[in-house]
């Protein structure tokens, strides 16, 4: 068991979820209640990582992260390091890759809130911010929990994009999934088996937790 790789995976998942959830909340609310031009495009772009091969996504992210490109250059100038093959680059890639897993459950949860409830809140004198904390968020609690668990588990099990963008640097970008690949390449089936079983068990529990939450609603 490569505990160092597991540590990297955990850190990556934690960072991703922490940054992703606020973004996803914002996007899901926008998509649930607003009509605006370009809505369809936005929805499609968010869902794109579900169908796109990780290598394609990874390729475009590499292009973006290149110090020759605006994003890569900006990061280079502010931090002095490259985004490619770095932990921050990995987090950024994970945000894009896990976006649908956070947005979809939240979107469904927000759409399930009857519009009159928000209107009743406004007519009770609650401003947009209080309406969000007191009404919307508690009612979307199940969706929030699903989004959290799904995006955490999905980031933990991420492979293709990580390999493309992060490479395989121990302690920095070698995640558990990459470590398993690494072990298989080295014919260390016993280690690969242990780590795979671990990830399998973890993912199964995560998905079961989500189903349990959905069922209780």
């Amino acid at each position, binding site marked *: 068991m490569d505990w160092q790789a597991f540590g990297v995976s955990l850190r990556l998942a934690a960072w991703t979820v922490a940054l992703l959830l606020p973004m996803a909340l914002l996007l899901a609310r926008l998509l649930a209640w607003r009509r605006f031009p370009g809505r369809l495009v936005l929805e499609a772009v968010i869902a794109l990582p579900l169908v796109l091969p990780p290598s394609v996504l990874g390729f475009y992210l590499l292009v973006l992260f290149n110090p020759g490109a605006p994003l890569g250059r900006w990061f280079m100038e502010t931090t002095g390091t490259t985004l490619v093959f770095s932990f921050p680059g990995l987090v950024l890639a994970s945000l894009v890759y896990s976006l649908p897993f956070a947005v979809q459950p939240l979107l469904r949860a927000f759409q399930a809130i009857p519009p009159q*409830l928000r*209107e*009743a809140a*406004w*007519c*009770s*004198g609650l401003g947009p911010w209080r309406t969000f904390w007191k*009404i919307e968020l508690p*009612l979307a609690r199940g969706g929030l929990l699903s989004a959290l668990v799904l995006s955490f588990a999905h980031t933990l099990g991420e492979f293709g994009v990580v390999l493309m963008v992060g490479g395989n640097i121990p302690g920095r970008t070698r995640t558990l999934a990459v470590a398993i690949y690494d072990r298989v390449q080295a014919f260390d089936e016993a280690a690969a088996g242990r780590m795979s079983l671990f990830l399998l068990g973890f993912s199964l529990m995560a998905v079961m937790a989500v189903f349990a939450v959905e069922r209780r609603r």
Partner: protein
Amino acid sequence: MKRLQVDIRQRRPIPLEVGLHCGRGELLALVGPSGSGKTSVLRCIAGLHHPTGRIVCGGEVWLDDALGIALPPQRRRVGFVFQDYALFPHLTVLQNLMLACRLPGERAREKARRWLQRVHLAGLEDRRPDTLSGGQRQRVALARAMMRDPDVILLDEPFSAVDQVTRRRLRLEMAELKRTLRIPMILVTHDLEEAEMLADRMALIHRGRILQQGSPAEVMLRPVDAEAARLVDVRNLFRGRVIAVDRERGRCRLRWEAGELEAPWRESIPVGATVDWCIPPAGLLLHSRRRPSRGVRENPVRGRIVEIVRFGGRAQLVLAPVAAPEKRLHLDLSQHVVERNRLAVGEPVGVSLLSRFIHLMPPRRR
């Protein structure tokens, strides 16, 4: 003075062109068929729709597109009771009320308890909305609307989601509450009986326009035109022609399919005009078969009974005039009158159309 003045227009989502007002402690019923725009008017007042025009409540301008004023719902002091009550399902009854109140914790709690007592819900503080009956939910919604100390209360079909027995009780409670409130109240309903019971004034709305405003009796008995008459379910609605006018006595002769009638005359109606006219069922007097009474000479019409519907000690009689068998005259009687006179379907009877009940509507100018 807390007085609500509304003058609004909008094209979407539903075309509206509405002017109305409501005084302190007055209950105005907005009545109309479904899709007429009643609920939209309430939503405009609450700030959930954004029409053009002006809304002033007690000297405070809520909306004035000329001045660029359009307060959001949070800043309009309205108490809104939604049609399906829109209670917050994740909060207890007490929390539902407290959320609508700006007072600090303990005082909000106290106020919420007082209101729950007033709507007869003391003891249900910690229940969730989904464990309440329809009537209880309606009372919670009403109490929640009152927690804001609103300057106007808006009721969107508040009795439509409950059974008939509960509805009757809730209406009585509403009438009771109304007497103690000193703010304008607007009740949206498609139920004429409800409007008649509760409203001080009634506004008839159709296709986003107000057809008529006035006391319930005036709107129900003296509709402005045939369209308004149909909306308030006037059953005896006919066409006729004014053939003679006696200006001094304020009377006219009216010819219709079943003969001639004497009717009250209105200044705006010239001789020769085609008019719509109506008479309430209470304005029809049944001629007793044995002892002719005094009224028999007033606008007599002979007819044949085509239908008798009995309910609650009353009977609805439908007649076909002999001279115009395709027309229908409706009158309401006590059941014992039906029995005493041995009335039955197919029997011939005589009725008088009492002149003072006849209401002429001038032809519509388009």
